[in-house]
């Protein structure tokens, strides 16, 4: 190679260099663009959900003085629990409102006035009296929940009373609300109801505890079944099964099942667990069984990957020391593969937590008020609750829908964080 030809090559390289740098930059820009696009979508989604949902964590209350008058309540024997339970607490709330607004007369106006307070107010009073029968005959102040229309109005008005969103409130009702606000007896407080109650058709009384417990019981059934079965299947396939057509067939089927739409598992559950075993509809036990079927392939696949990642030298060393096959697997391979298997199981569970379609088929898309206390009580699940609320006509459910989405996201994020943490914490490098 002579000098001039070398120069020619160098020149060519130098000429193309700028172009190659540009191509390199473009290539990187594509990647950054893709990530920016993803982040933008995420930001838009989060701002929309948080913007709509943050107000649901606060609920407007109004302070009223009530007199637990035994005549108004129709209680003549305070020791009789039946009388305490059946008393007319609404009359007490109404009397208190009428006292506060003495000029309101006429049936229509009175109805409008009473509608300002949540219709759960009487149950609140009943609970108070049941807890402390001494309250009978006494006058005391209570912070009552207001009706959802008043709540929406209070949240949307500015501090000087402008721009309130009146919705279904009429002019008189707005005057009353304004006068209560001016008096300072109406205020926004943290919405504990949202975290301590089950579903309700009154937005101000609706909560997600029922849905959270339903999801919890469903997931308990799922993890209790899918993790041991999944790990056992993975260990057999990875450590024991001979390589032949039959095991290949099983492997293809497992991979296939992981991609089957979840509604199919719901149909399967409907015909097997409800149709054949005659279990009840809408219970977490059936939900958990269906979600077990759904998450099994995910767990088996990830467990096998984790088992495969255990280096053969560990096995050989154990065999070299005279361990039996079972001892090798149980004492060495499974503990080392555990972080990977757990990660797979948690990701599978997170998937199951966000699932609605199969639950639709087995009747977990239902209106359930009582908070489930076990795996055989009727229940819904978090994503189902979101779906049900988004379909409700009451306006105040819009913010509650978004708030429930935020709660679900918190659960999902914490589960995925746990998975990452486990992997980082327990993982061993060779």
């Amino acid at each position, binding site marked *: 190679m002579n000098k001039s030809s070398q120069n020619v090559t160098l020149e060519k390289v130098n000429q193309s260099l700028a172009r190659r740098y540009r191509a390199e930059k473009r290539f990187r820009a594509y990647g950054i663009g893709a990530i920016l696009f993803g982040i933008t979508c995420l930001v838009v989604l989060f701002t929309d959900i948080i913007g709509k949902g943050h107000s649901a964590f606060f609920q407007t209350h109004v302070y009223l003085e009530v007199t637990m008058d035994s005549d108004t309540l129709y209680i003549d024997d305070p020791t009789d629990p039946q009388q305490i339970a059946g008393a007319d607490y609404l009359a007490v709330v109404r009397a208190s409102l009428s006292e506060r607004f003495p000029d309101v007369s006429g049936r229509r106006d009175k*109805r409008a006035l009473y*509608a300002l307070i949540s*219709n*759960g107010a009487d*149950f609140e009073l009943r609970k108070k009296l049941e807890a402390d029968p001494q309250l009978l005959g006494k006058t005391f102040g209570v912070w009552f929940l207001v009706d959802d229309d008043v709540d929406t109005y209070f949240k949307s008005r500015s501090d000087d009373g402008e721009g309130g*969103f*009146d*919705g*279904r409130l009429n002019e008189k009702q707005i005057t009353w609300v304004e006068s209560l606000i001016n008096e300072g007896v109406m205020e926004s407080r943290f919405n504990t109801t949202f975290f301590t109650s089950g579903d*309700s*058709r*009154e937005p101000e009384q609706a909560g997600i505890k029922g849905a959270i417990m339903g999801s919890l019981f469903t997931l308990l059934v799922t993890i*209790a079944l899918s993790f041991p079965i999944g790990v056992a299947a993975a260990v057999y396939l990875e450590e024991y099964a001979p390589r032949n057509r039959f095991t290949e067939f099983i492997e293809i089927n497992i991979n296939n099942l992981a991609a089957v739409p979840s509604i199919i598992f719901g149909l399967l559950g409907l015909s097997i667990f*409800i149709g054949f*075993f*005659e*279990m*009840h*509809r*809408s*219970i977490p*036990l059936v939900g958990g069984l269906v979600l077990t079927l759904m998450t099994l392939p995910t767990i088996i696949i990830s467990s096998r990957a984790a088992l495969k990642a255990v280096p053969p030298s560990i096995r050989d060393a154990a065999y070299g020391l005279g361990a039996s096959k079972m001892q090798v697997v149980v004492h060495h391979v499974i503990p080392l593969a555990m972080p990977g298997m757990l990660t797979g199981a948690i990701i599978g569970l997170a998937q199951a937590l966000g699932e609605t379609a199969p639950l639709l088929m087995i*009747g977990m*898309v*239902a*209106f*359930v*008020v*009582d908070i489930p206390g076990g*795996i*055989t009580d*009727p229940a819904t699940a978090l994503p189902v609750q979101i779906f049900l609320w*988004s*379909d*409700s*006509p*009451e*306006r105040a*459910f*819009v913010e509650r829908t978004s708030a429930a989405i935020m709660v679900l996201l918190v659960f999902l994020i914490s589960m995925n964080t746990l998975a990452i943490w486990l992997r980082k914490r327990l993982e061993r490098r060779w």
Partner: protein
Amino acid sequence: MKKSMIITALALASGLTSGAATAARDYINIVGSSTVYPFSTVVAERFGRATQFKTPKVESTGSGGGLKLFCSGVGIQFPDIANASRRIKQSEVAMCNENGVTEIVEVLVGFDGIVIGNSTEAKQIQFTRKDLFLGLAKYVPNPDGSETTVENPYKNWSEVNPALPNRAIEVLGPPPTSGTRDAFVELVMEAGCDQIDWVADLSKKAKAAAKAGNSAKADELKNQHKTMCQTVREDGAFVETGENDNLIVQKLNASPDAFGVFGFSFLDQNIDVIQGSMIDGFAPTFESISDGSYPVSRPLYFYVKKAHVGVIPGIHEYIKEFTHERAFGEEGYLADKGMISLDRAARRQTSQDVSNLKLLQL
């Protein structure tokens, strides 16, 4: 030691699950129409709080789906009550009977209006049912006046009826799986369709043919009538959306020219942003639906399995609560949720039938 523990745990687990599957049920199981669902759930919630019974579980499965579950048999794994936004069909009663569900109590609780509405930013429109049929049917009578059909050529409302605004036809409505859609087709489309004389004659001719014994001819005429009157256009003018979806409100606000089809309770909850269009001269209000002058309304029923009354606790009490004046009366809490109540005499009749558990006679 370890092994025996595992075996005990397994035995316990299997014992628990098998016990759970056959355990008695102490809550009422309600299925059925998505239109009755908002009312049924309100009653269920109040009932659960005010009595010592558990809160009933309500599933929204659609009228047909609910009755199918309801009619699958007698026993704790089958529903006790089915809600329906139409009357039970003869075929469904037959299916019930086949599966041993012979004693059914029918309860008529109220009415629901179906509303076509638009954003309050636009003008309130006066439709006739014929306008709506011509605007939304897939096949319409040939505009040249001959007794033939053509695919719907109308793009703007003013082409259908010069009195209507010159705006593109765009209606957001429920999907075919919904009871609201069925009722809309039956009460608006078919009624509007039959206002065209030669189309109405088709069903008359079909009846005459059936009487004369020519069943093939009768079927053909009937089918012709059905395709014409029941097929909704699919060229984009009718957009299928979820039922009672809060999104509809946003969509209607964003495009003031569009209309939406939904239940009256939905209009009632959003009365500040959407308005109901007048149909045949009547606006959808409580009064006009209740007295029957607003033409598009349907009855709301629920059906009770008498064999379950007394077995599942609280059924009789629940249906009594539903038909109590404080619930389904004119000023009751169901009216607050948008249900149109029956008139006084009909309410009294219903309450009486409920306390006697009067059986359904078809």
